[in-house]
């Protein structure tokens, strides 16, 4: 027998899911603009300029263009897989947000009601994010295979090999965080880093920075961004797994990529930089959500910054970094972390 409370809770949850999904859907638009703008300024250009003031309406123009483009399906492609592959890439990127907290609770100023800034307080949150986040790669592999094109297939294969290699290192880094914070629950992980910035996992010397480096490098490889975007290496593979895609289906891949970048930024903040905790106790009058957003924005900027700083690695270098450096390093680091925690 559903009570009124239960119904209210379900309605609230539905509203939260709807709002969050809308935000994530819209997020890549400002991000593409920002990325092109940052690219422009780093290369001493202007970036988008002509559509709207400072080119701010450029993403809308792009979206309209993508919507009206013909959705081409190659003749010899595996039609069904080709059509659902972009969705397979996109859905896990959104599903991850079910476990990602954006803050503890938020008091709406006028009504005084408290709203929880997370969808579910999952006690295996960290594991869930790793598991679901890893599923995006199927969209890329299947899309690459279903296109029936050499370049797309090579892109898909590179994607899968890269993902397997770096997933291990990233998981080890998350295990390190779980060991330091003593919980798989993301809320608990953030709570354990409360107080001042000295209790952030990043500053748990000497292992914290190492875990962070492993996590960051592995994540950049997993979300296929420069310097590890070998699966869409336009120099050798024209554009990798999405060579044959056009229009909306292509934009789904882009959407998944940008959402994954946001996810990784959020996870870096939650795992290593104290989530929504202020760095100093006397600065805690600034609302936690502002701290959180500020830190996440920094990481998003950081990823774009790195993109236009580093050249692309070679594929053998990529594998070497993954298997010969990151994985042994993380194994040693687990040992040191364990010894420090005794």
């Amino acid at each position: 027998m559903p009570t009124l409370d239960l119904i209210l809770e379900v309605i609230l949850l539905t509203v939260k899911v709807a709002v969050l999904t809308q935000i994530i859907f819209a997020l890549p638009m400002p991000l593409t603009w920002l990325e092109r703008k940052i690219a422009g300024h780093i290369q001493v250009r202007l970036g988008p300029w002509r559509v709207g003031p400072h080119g701010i309406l450029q993403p809308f123009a792009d979206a309209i263009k993508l919507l009206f483009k013909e959705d081409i399906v190659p003749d010899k492609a595996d039609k069904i897989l080709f059509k659902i592959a972009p969705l397979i890439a996109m859905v896990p990127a959104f599903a991850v947000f079910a476990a990602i907290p954006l803050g503890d609770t938020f008091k709406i100023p006028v009504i005084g009601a408290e709203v929880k800034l997370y969808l579910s307080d999952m006690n295996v949150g960290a594991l869930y994010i790793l598991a679901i986040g890893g599923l995006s790669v199927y969209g890329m592999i299947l899309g690459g295979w279903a296109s029936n094109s050499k370049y797309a297939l090579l892109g898909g294969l590179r994607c899968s090999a890269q993902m397997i290699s770096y997933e291990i290192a990233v998981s080890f880094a998350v295990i390190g965080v779980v060991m330091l914070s003593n919980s798989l629950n993301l809320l608990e992980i953030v709570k354990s880093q409360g107080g001042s910035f000295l209790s952030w996992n990043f500053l748990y010397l000497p292992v914290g920075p190492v875990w962070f480096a492993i996590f960051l490098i592995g994540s950049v490889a997993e979300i296929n961004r420069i310097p590890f975007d070998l699966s869409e290496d336009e120099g050798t593979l024209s554009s990798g797994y999405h060579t044959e895609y056009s229009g909306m289906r292509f934009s789904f891949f882009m959407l998944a990529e940008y959402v994954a970048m946001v996810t990784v930024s959020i996870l870096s903040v939650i795992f290593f930089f104290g989530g929504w905790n202020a760095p100093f106790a006397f600065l805690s009058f600034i609302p936690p959500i502002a701290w959180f957003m500020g830190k996440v924005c920094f990481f998003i900027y950081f990823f774009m910054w790195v993109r236009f700083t580093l050249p692309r690695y070679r594929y053998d270098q990529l594998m070497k970094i993954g298997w010969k450096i990151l994985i042994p390093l993380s194994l040693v680091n687990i040992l040191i972390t364990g010894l420090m925690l005794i």
Partner: protein
Amino acid sequence: MEDGKKGLDIFGLIKSVLFTDFVKGLVITLGYNVSRSITLRYPDTEKWIPYRRWRGMHTLNKDANGRELCVACELCSRACPTQCITVIPMEDATGRGIADRVAKVWKVDLVRCLFCGFCEDACPTTAVRLGREYELACHDLSCTVKEREGLLKPQPVPESFEGGVVVGARFVRTPGGISVVADLSKSRKRAL
């Protein structure tokens, strides 16, 4: 890695552990990110005015009294390697030109012209000069042949203007076409 046999490179190891090269790169790109863009905002607000030596669209000069300097000697059309200049002389004693012989027709086909400047060198009276007008694109072929009447009008950038600077400009759309009107009073040096 290649010279690993020489013994362990301690400094190299420390440098790679601390990502110093990576951080150096980041600092450089951040510096560029906050630096001023060198993009010339042509055609919206800025325009590049070339140096005097620039060879753009032809112009026919007049002397101080407003008489045409051209004496229709046809040396320019003879010197032209692409035969794009057509000169038809005529007799005119009304004082239109500095001599009795003036050009009835003086036209240049800009599609064939290669802006070599031979006509300029051949001219005995410095009547023809390659000016600094470089926006020559248009919608149809009718504008590619420039007649004497149009060429006699002074170009927007006067010969006295030094050039080699970026000046303020305005983008103008008219039914006849588009143009960028330069404002020579505001000028700045090029950034790079």
